[in-house]
């Protein structure tokens, strides 16, 4: 496997503010790296630097085998960039947007037209192909933006918060389309605030905060850092909450946490089915009426909170691996 993106010690200073403070990263060809972090963590600056839009103050990086400062033009021939705001020309039609970028990437008039038609079909934009982009919905714009960034079949694709502001259905569609590109061998560097998105698309995740990389690993590795699975017990009657906690406390590795509003007890049990069975038996024996009995793996949200002590801005739906059992 060769490396498609490699950066060492990238630093960028704006006045007194260090946007990047020594970022190292490496992405194998054909894989997806998710850059996760709160607003202002340096995600966009990293992407803009790697995409040759910004020159780093210090550090080096190679994208698709070329230096981002000294061989800018070579890099630019091999990358696609889809930004935070869908950078499409609103007065041009979808097709014209694609053809324009095709011509600027030297595909020629005929080549651009052919490639545009291909991408319009692939991104399900054929029906709207000859309407001005200002009439497109948010999801269609993002799809067009992604299609435009793929016009010259780039080796490396930079996606800066590609689904921010989209509804869940449009987001799922876009994810599928990005996944298609990865399946065809494109290397992707993706920034996102949605933990769910990094979980779904990224092979490896880099957590950044204040211009530094603070954690790195696969989604599972990061979750393991926070600890094992947790049991969540919701009781029917709020007054039984304390009782449930008292019953579970002797079985747990850490004191149970109570959530009064949700009438839920969170508790971390030792590994194995035995502990789970004992918990169920103990609750049943104590006569607590249980509404929900679920095992939850820590989400990336928990990981993030654990690493930075801050919750993420985006309240993405918490993904849970529920093992519901009737009691």
């Amino acid at each position, binding site marked *: 496997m060769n490396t498609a993106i490699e950066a060492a010690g990238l630093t960028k200073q704006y006045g007194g503010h260090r946007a990047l403070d020594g970022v190292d990263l490496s992405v194998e060809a054909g894989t997806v790296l998710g850059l996760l972090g709160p607003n202002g963590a340096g995600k966009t600056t990293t992407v803009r630097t790697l995409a040759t*839009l910004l020159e780093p103050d210090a550090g080096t990086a190679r994208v698709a085998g070329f230096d981002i400062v000294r061989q800018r033009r070579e890099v630019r021939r091999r990358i696609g*960039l889809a*930004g935070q705001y869908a950078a499409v*020309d609103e007065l041009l039609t979808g097709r014209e947007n694609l053809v324009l970028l095709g011509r*600027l990437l030297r595909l020629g008039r005929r080549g651009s037209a052919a490639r545009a038609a291909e991408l319009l079909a692939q991104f399900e934009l054929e029906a709207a192909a000859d309407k001005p982009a200002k009439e497109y919905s948010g999801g269609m714009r993002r799809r067009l933006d992604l299609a435009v960034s793929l016009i010259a079949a780039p080796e490396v694709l930079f996606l800066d918060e590609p689904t921010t502001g989209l509804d869940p259905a449009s987001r799922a569609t876009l994810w599928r389309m990005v996944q298609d590109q990865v399946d065809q061998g494109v290397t992707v560097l993706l920034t996102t605030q949605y933990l769910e998105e990094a979980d779904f698309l990224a092979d490896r995740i880099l957590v950044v905060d204040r211009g530094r990389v603070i954690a790195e690993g696969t989604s599972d590795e990061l979750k393991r850092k926070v600890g094992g699975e947790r049991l969540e017990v919701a009781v029917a009657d709020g007054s039984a909450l304390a009782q449930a906690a008292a019953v579970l406390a002797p079985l747990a590795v850490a004191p149970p946490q109570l959530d009064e509003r949700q009438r839920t007890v969170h508790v971390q049990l030792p590994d194995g089915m035995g502990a789970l069975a004992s918990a169920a038996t103990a609750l049943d024996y104590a006569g607590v009426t249980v509404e929900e009995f679920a095992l939850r793996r820590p989400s990336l949200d928990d990981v993030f909170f654990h690493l930075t002590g801050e919750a993420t801005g985006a309240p993405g739906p918490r993904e849970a691996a529920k093992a519901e059992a009737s009691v």
Partner: protein
Amino acid sequence: MSSVLAHGGDVAALTGRHLRHLRRTPEKIIGVALTPVAMVVILGYLFATVVEVKNTGGSYREYIMAGVFAQVGLSCIGITAIGVAGDLGKGLIDRFRSLPMGRATVLVSHTLADLAAAALSILLVAVTGLAVGWRVHGSFLENLTGFLLLLGFAYAMLWVGALLGMVMRNLEAISGVAALLLVLFSFLSSSFMPLTGLPGWLRTVAEWNPVSAVSEACRQLWGNTGPAASGSFPVENAVLVSALSIGLLVAVLIPLSLRVYRISATR
């Protein structure tokens, strides 16, 4: 050679984009031509009845036409400024910069397409002028030189617009500044009145205003004025002064804009 051709292709593709914009938003041309056309009517009909211009062979209506044409150039500042600021704001410039394109391509194609808008506006004003009785009296070459000077002046003003658009990203603020520049530079010039009545220093400033030079040159070339009696250098050598000031403006503005483009896009 092949790289020159490729750059030409990039400019052609992007200029095509802006010309499409122009076709889809014809109000852009109306915006440029509206004020000057209104000036022809207002000055030509209302003011002409009270203003008596000394040293003009022709009428006041003939006198102002050159100034109105120069005003078209000034109102071009706004369209390029808004176009460039819009592209920056929407992230299109980022996308263009991530392509293996020449550094000057984006601004060159913006200004080329807007020059087409300027030429159309000049045509509109000319038609209005002819309708109210303005005529050119020079030789074919003289008449043509006048219009070429106007186009050159408009082109220089488009680069002022590019610079303004990059420095001020806010579209409302740009409209305000562009309107101020239009009023300031067209009235502090010989566009609509001879400068003989102005106090000394103000007169010098107004005489060296490129708008004065351009409109005076056009008047002389088109025979829309009597023999220049008041013998200050920029008035006596209006064609030379206007050509030189356009050249100077372009020589300063283009490299400056390209530099600002590099810096402003990397913010």
